[in-house]
């Protein structure tokens, strides 16, 4: 997994509340393998109308959002389905950081596993940054994970992130390798547990 330390890039304001994972990546693309490039169908049904034409009223289609690596969104981003492919679609589109007042729990977990930063910031602060961007579409935003700050021109605001996720992103840690180092703990737990909770095993006498 790629580390995330600091990023300066264009940012796209998409201040809609409750953009759930069905909106981020419609279910019909879930059977696509990742190699197919899920970035092309990010927000598909919001970006395009039934005839495949871009919807002008969807902010993501506006020039300010082309090439953006940072996404500013409304509250409860990524709620709903646990589909990790929603994170793949965002990441494959080139986005490395999403800033929102709140995130769906499973989405935030999935994001960190893929090197996508989910930064939690109050709605008012996000609105201030969006206002600056509206006045100057070429203005960049800097996200500093070590300092836990987001700055844009003369604005600078702290953001929140779960400390476990922060460590993992900063170090590019791999969960599986980390768990391997606890192999003996796991074996000891399993032996103890089989004694204390014999009922937890599925019975093997099923038809």
């Amino acid at each position, binding site marked *: 997994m790629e580390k995330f330390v600091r990023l300066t890039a264009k940012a796209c304001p998409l201040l809609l*509340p*409750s953009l*759930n994972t*069905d*909106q981020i990546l*419609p*279910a*019909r693309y*879930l*059977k696509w*393998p*990742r190699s197919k490039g899920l970035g092309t169908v990010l927000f598909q*049904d*919001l970006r395009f109308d*039934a005839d495949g034409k871009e919807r002008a009223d969807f902010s993501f289609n506006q020039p300010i959002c082309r090439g953006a690596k940072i996404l500013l969104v*409304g509250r*409860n981003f990524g*709620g*709903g*389905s*646990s*589909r*990790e*492919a929603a*994170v793949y679609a965002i990441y494959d589109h080139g986005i490395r950081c999403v800033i929102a007042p*709140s*995130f*769906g*729990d*499973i989405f935030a*977990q*999935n994001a960190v*596993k*893929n090197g996508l930063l989910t930064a939690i910031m109050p709605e008012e602060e996000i609105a201030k940054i969006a206002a600056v961007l509206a006045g100057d579409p070429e203005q960049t935003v800097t996200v500093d994970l070590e300092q836990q700050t987001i700055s844009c021109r003369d604005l600078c605001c702290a953001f929140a992130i*779960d*400390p*476990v996720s922060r*460590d993992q992103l900063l170090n590019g840690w791999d*969960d*599986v390798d*980390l*768990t*391997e180092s*606890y192999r003996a*703990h*796991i074996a000891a*737990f*399993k032996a103890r*547990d089989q004694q204390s*909770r*014999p*009922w*937890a*095993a*599925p*019975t*093997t*006498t*099923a*038809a």
Partner: protein
Amino acid sequence: MPMSEPQTLIDKLWSAHEITRREDGAALLWVDRHYVHEGSFHGFSQMQARGRTVAEPSLTFGVADHYVPTRGRDRKIPNPEIAAMVCNLEKNAADNHISLFGLHDPRQGIVHVVGPEQGLTLPGLLIVCGDSHTSTHGAFGAYAFGIGASEVAHVLMTQTIWQKKPKTMRVTVDGVAAPGIAAKDIALAIIARVHADGAQGHAIEFAGSAIRALSMEGRLTLCNLSIEAGARCGMVAPDATTFAYLKGRPYAPKGAAFEQAVEAWTKLTSDPRAAFDRDVTLDAGGIAPIVTWGTTPDDALPIDATVPDPARESDPVRAQYLRDALDYMGIAPGKKLTEIAVDRVFIGSCTNSRIEDLRAAAAVLAGRVSKVPGLVSPGSTLVKRQAEEEGLDKVFRDAGLEWAESGCSMCVGINGDLVPSGERCASTTNRNFRGRQGPGARTHLMSPAMVAAAAVAGHLADVRPLLAGRKA
């Protein structure tokens, strides 16, 4: 020695599974059951890319549900991409020696229906699945939550998962629900109160006399929908209802082992003075049949209400949301809910497709005809058999609805069972998100009985008058 602090059920389940805890607060937890389905393929691919195998195949169970056809099971699946999804699960299960309830297995069904039905889901277990509605299994007093593909891969390889302990929320529903009020109505009332993201970061314990009075089917519906309040998981402490349901289930403990298990399970309750981070209370007696009107599950109102009017909303952000939602749903501001005509109905999904749900819908439909087309997809092949033995299939068919095989079907539409664009569907499912039942589809969530009422009326309707003189 200080007296031990009173513990919540959540605390007890957590500590029983904790293998180790890091300084930053993340704990490594043991996983008792891992359910996989066709959509888990990313997890298997990640595992294979590392050249690894499944750590505990005997604790891993596969179920074909998301992509399976609900008609023509004797024929080959016509869409090759969908066929490949079902086949891929079969291959992954076989390669890794995982028990599979596959397309043609008589026990096949939706993963969250099959787990409980087979006695795989038990009190006190930690259960994960690459599906957000894994919260369903908490109905047994299990710690059950949905995970993403990377976590699926991690569980496959290690039978463990890293988690941070969630905050705790107790939702107490006391009182007696009126006739015609289902677990779905209670759940939607809770979501409307807490909001779709209100329980984020929390594990919910449902408590109170109205919850105790629910059958296992009702508790499963309730815990299923806890994710729609944003919760990590939902649970109900196990009791006599739970034990009676489990006794004799194929994979549950048997004989003396069952009695010993019940003894252990009985201790799985929150201690009397245990403190929760948040407490929410509701009066069951005040709950009316509820339907959703918008595009998130907390857009829920009693059936006698009118949809909101953005012009009367003072918060501009909320007003814009209301306008967008009403526009997508094709509903005029301030319209009475009972004046909204529906184009079709769907009864199914892991929320409401168990035998009790089918009985509730059939009680309304018996001797009546649906004004619109509709599909009924039982939660499992065993539920389907039982419903047929009870003659429920005939009630649905006589009413003009289609009686199909079991699967996720029109809940998410990826098997091809779609609501056509622009059409309005009264649905027993769990998500009214834009495009959830198909691009452009408009979904109204409600209980099975309320879906039956909408079918008979041709518009959203109060089921209660239709139940007069009938056994609900």
